[in-house]
């Protein structure tokens, strides 16, 4: 792999580059942009993103097994509480903002504020705090928050399901095929993806579940070897020939670029009440919700992770306001094409401002790399 590719992957540049291209294109030549984005959106959002969610699930599973950063439930309790508090705070402020406005159609858009962009958050926490104990705390928090959003959109889509019996049969067949493949001790993952994955995709589609989540149930059956924490990069000690992450690394980067390209192109005047509601929910509601939940938990006897103080926690809480990729995904899952979707997508895009706020907070609080005497790398 050449140096540019490696740099792009390690710095998670696929999404930002896709976002910039989409924004410039949409505002310079809107008709050609939307013609392309509407033509590609189904394939990218419903098929391509299945690879991304498979990879995310793989990461989560590997961090939860012994040796993983998220291993043991004791360690997980506080981030779970923080995630729930942050989600409640975000949804509460989102709805509170809507009460001041006058667009009830936006009420069902609340899953968008559950979203946290795991990749960008991880990159930012490493950039601001270095190799810090706050990192696994943040990762668990992200997983729980996004999990709540995914379950929500899963249920939201399920209501519209038309062929539930056929869908359930296909899902069972897919799971059975994956189990059989796992027992046959095959070392390549493509039979899982192509046979079980295809059956599950159709099963999800027919059942009304979001098909981008179709590969999630078979991830535990995939061949793997133990590895270190390296989200979306490939530096672990595993057998790379069979590892999901190795196989999907480049396809997922391409998918993420296309996802950003297809979904991030909004006209600059496409803002509206939904935009500000998403921003208020994620940038005010979530950080306050997280800090309030953690404060309450500490009062009730839970302990902060070692070496994590309130300064680091505040920075982490602000980092979680970045919804970006997941925010765009949740928005497209909740609303069809139209001005409301555009407003919410713009809100999800603008949450990137959370990176600036978190950086400013780290600097002001002297946290992580900004700590007195730490020196910037």
């Amino acid at each position: 792999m050449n140096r540019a590719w490696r740099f792009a992957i390690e710095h998670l540049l696929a999404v930002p580059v896709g976002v910039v291209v989409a924004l410039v294109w949409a505002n310079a030549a809107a008709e050609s942009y939307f013609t392309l984005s509407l033509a590609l959106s189904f394939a990218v959002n419903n098929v391509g993103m299945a690879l991304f969610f498979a990879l995310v699930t793989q990461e989560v599973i590997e961090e939860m097994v012994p040796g993983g950063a998220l291993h043991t439930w004791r360690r997980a309790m506080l981030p779970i509480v923080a995630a729930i508090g942050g989600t409640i705070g975000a949804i509460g402020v989102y709805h509170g903002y809507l009460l001041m406005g006058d667009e009830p159609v936006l009420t069902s858009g609340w899953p968008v504020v559950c979203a946290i962009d795991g990749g960008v958050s991880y990159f930012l926490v490493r950039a601001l705090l270095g190799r810090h104990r706050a990192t696994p705390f943040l990762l668990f928090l992200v997983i729980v928050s996004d999990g709540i959003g995914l379950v929500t959109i899963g249920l939201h889509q399920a209501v519209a399901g038309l062929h539930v019996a056929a869908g359930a049969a296909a899902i069972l067949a897919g799971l059975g095929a994956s189990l059989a493949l796992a027992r046959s001790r095959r070392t390549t993952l493509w039979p899982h993806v192509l046979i079980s994955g295809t059956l599950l995709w159709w099963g999800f589609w027919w059942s009304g579940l979001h098909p981008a989540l179709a590969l999630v149930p078979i991830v535990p059956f995939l061949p793997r070897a133990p590895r270190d924490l390296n989200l979306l990069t490939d530096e672990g000690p595993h057998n790379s020939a069979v590892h999901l992450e190795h196989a999907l690394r480049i396809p997922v980067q391409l998918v993420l670029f296309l996802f950003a390209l297809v979904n991030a192109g909004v006209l600059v005047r496409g803002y509206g009440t939904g935009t500000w509601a998403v921003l208020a929910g994620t940038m005010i509601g979530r950080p306050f919700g997280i800090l309030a939940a953690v404060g309450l938990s500490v009062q009730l006897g839970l302990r902060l992770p070692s070496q994590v103080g309130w300064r680091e926690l505040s920075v982490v809480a602000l980092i979680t306001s970045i919804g970006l990729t997941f925010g765009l995904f949740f928005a497209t899952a909740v609303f069809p094409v139209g001005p409301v979707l555009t407003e919410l997508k713009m809100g999800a895009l603008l949450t990137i401002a959370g990176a600036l706020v978190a950086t400013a907070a780290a600097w002001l609080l002297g946290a992580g790399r900004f700590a007195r005497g730490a020196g910037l790398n």
Partner: protein
Amino acid sequence: MNGLDTQDLAPRRMRNAVRCPRRLFAVLAALYFSVVGLLGQALTLPNRPDSLKFAVIGDNGTGDTPQYEVGRRMAAVQRSFRFDQVIMLGDNIYGSQKPQDFVRKFEEPYRPLLEGGVRFYASLGNHDTPAELVYKPFNMGGQRYYTYARANVRFFVLDSTAVDSKQQMWLENALKDSRDDWKICYFHHPLYSNAGRHGSDVELRVLLEPLFVKYGVNVVFSGHDHVYERLKPQKGISYFVSGAAGQLRRGNMKRSDTTAAAFDQDQSFMLVEVDGADMAFQAISRSGTTVDSGVLHRGPRP
């Protein structure tokens, strides 16, 4: 009589005017607009006895004075131009949607029309709620999108806030099945608009315009931008923005070479008359001034 009847509240205002200078100023302003209205009141429409006549309002449901004044102007016009149908382009009820709001923001402003048997056919805007689907005077039959025919015209009413694949399929089938002379679509968000705040919704245009072109839609009405604008025909289709029957964004028009006519200085509504292959239209301001008018000719269907 082939003219617009301008009923103003000038006499009552005059009685109170002497009490304070502010009222006097208000009365003078009302008189000014009345004179302007009288000068511009001529009905430009053919007003033939057997033609289909309807009015167009958008972004109306504020419950504020301008909406009531537009309602009075419409009722006055209706005495001479006997339209029996009003199409609503969305944002029918702003804010709270309690039963009393439906009275204050819809039934009261249009009471003379409702009592005269005029039927309203609503589309949903971004400020509307599903409660409106089952509000009988809106004639939506519980549907977000629906179609109905009057004379030789078929109307297609869309929910442009959320154009899902189901609605697209429904629209394509409905357009395909229609054998009516005129196909008129109306919905809230404009595919073409030169107003400054929202402007054209290009994503919706990419989605809907190919269907409109393929199945021969003649005219499209939208609101959302709180102005009046008539666009030059785009791919053979005439587009109107009429989103100022209650709200107004004064001075918001940014005319371009696609603008045929525009008005952003006062609230407004439209009158339309379809007679055979001709569709005459007239846009009228709250004060009664004709701000635009013309006739569209429909070519023969293939």
